[in-house]
């Protein structure tokens, strides 16, 4: 700082390149914020806490209620689902199926589901020593925190604004990660299309104001359908008047299929 050419402000030290440190930091801050915004990586509305969606569909979250005490194990739900959704007839492709639980006096738990319950359940050969026995209908739980959605590498499986977990069969690459990730065994691999498939809550029926096929045909109203959180619909009433459990709550998947009167042995 000895040359006469430089006439520095004694308060502000100037770097040798001629840019002062304060200006440099200010420009750097602006650039660090501005570049990502300009590139569209960070969306401004989200940054400001505004939600981009704002459509009314987000206020409707679908869910299903299942009353174990009412299920007679007729398997009509599984049959209707295969009819409605063109699920192959082979006995290992199911969007929904019915399991039969048998708990013996000694605590042994036997679970069977011959052909998903479609053809009925054969009577037990030995009914002696039966402590409890009952049916449990199962299907995709349309989890709020769905593991299958998290693992999909291409975004082919997704949660819609109304809470249904769906598969985009045009975009699915058939890697099968989601089939492995589902803790409820609710997904299966289509042998013809080579894509993952699953229960859609009969999304095409909901779009036309109808209930899912399994709910439509359930002869004892063991299954019912509605919206979570709204008071005036069958599901809300079901949730108010029953002791409710979900499957595998410890996994924090937040299922939207709710079971009433479910035994502690059900997995």
């Amino acid at each position, binding site marked *: 700082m000895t040359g006469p050419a430089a006439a520095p402000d004694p308060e502000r030290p100037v770097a040798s390149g001629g840019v002062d440190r304060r200006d440099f930091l200010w420009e750097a801050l602006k650039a660090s914020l501005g570049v990502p915004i300009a590139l569209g990586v960070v969306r401004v509305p989200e940054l400001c806490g505004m939600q981009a969606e704002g459509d009314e569909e987000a206020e409707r979250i679908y869910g299903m209620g299942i009353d174990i005490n009412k299920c007679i*194990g007729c398997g*009509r739900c599984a049959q209707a689902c295969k*009819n409605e959704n063109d699920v192959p007839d082979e006995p290992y492709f199911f969007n929904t199926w019915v399991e039969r639980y048998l708990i013996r006096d000694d605590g042994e738990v036997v679970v069977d589901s011959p052909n998903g319950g479609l053809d009925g359940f054969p009577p*037990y050969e030995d009914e002696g020593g039966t402590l409890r026995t009952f049916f449990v209908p199962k299907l995709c739980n349309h989890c709020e925190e769905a593991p299958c959605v998290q693992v999909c590498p291409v975004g082919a499986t*997704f*949660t819609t604004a109304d809470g249904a977990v769906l598969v*985009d069969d045009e975009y699915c690459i058939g890697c099968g990660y989601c089939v492995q990730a589902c803790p409820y065994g609710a997904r299966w691999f289509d042998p013809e299309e080579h894509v993952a498939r699953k229960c859609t809550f009969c999304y*095409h029926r909901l779009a036309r104001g109808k209930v899912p096929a399994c709910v439509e045909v359930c*002869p004892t109203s063991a299954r019912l359908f509605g919206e979570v959180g709204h008071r005036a619909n069958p599901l809300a009433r079901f949730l108010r008047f029953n002791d409710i459990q979900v499957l595998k709550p410890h996994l924090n998947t937040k299922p939207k299929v709710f079971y009433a009167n479910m035994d502690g042995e059900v997995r």
Partner: protein
Amino acid sequence: MPQQVTRLGIAFAVMAIVFVAVRQRLVPDTFGEAGHYRAAAADSIAAYPLKYAGHEECTLCHRPIAEERRDSNHSGVSCEVCHGPAAEHVAAPGTVKPPAPRDRGFCPLCHGYNAARPSGFPQIDPVAHNPTVPCMTCHDPHAPEPPVIPGACRACHGQIASQKAVSHHATLPCLTCHEAPDEHKSSPRAVRPGKPDGRDFCGTCHAEDAISPSHIPRVNMSTHGEDYLCWQCHYPHHPEAS
């Protein structure tokens, strides 16, 4: 501007253009509009064709049968449970006729005896129950009633009733020992029937000083069976001979 900077600039520009072009080509049209997925996929799934029309559609044309069913024991059973998916029939009523199952294999899907079914649900043993006769001969599926209505308790507790019928307690009505409120018939699990609460109840017939017919076996209520309750050793629906 130095040559190196110009070349670098051109290289960056080319890379950016290639990136944008490739991305434009690979990312589907509606991807990211509603989330990390193709928004159009939800619409295409919603456009799948219906197979099950729903019972409301059936009612529009088949009103008499729908009303008959609505007031019957099958009021909750949707038409398409038995008649199968009927959307095609709704679209072309004259040409597509939904099937009506008449074989004996179909009704037992719901009504065949199975231990896992809720107690109270009407069940039969398909092998023993009027073999070879089609179910519809006796039961109208649109308004089913049992031809002979079973006794109140026996309707659901058939196994106990059959056992009691061959026991020494055969002549005792269930209500001798059990209090069964009417609500128990409609909500069998929520409202449960009462049971005797102590040894003295059995003693009203079986105590040495009981006022009852003399052929009834007697015990000394103060010494017999120590402090155990009677039904911890004797099964009241089928008590062993004395």
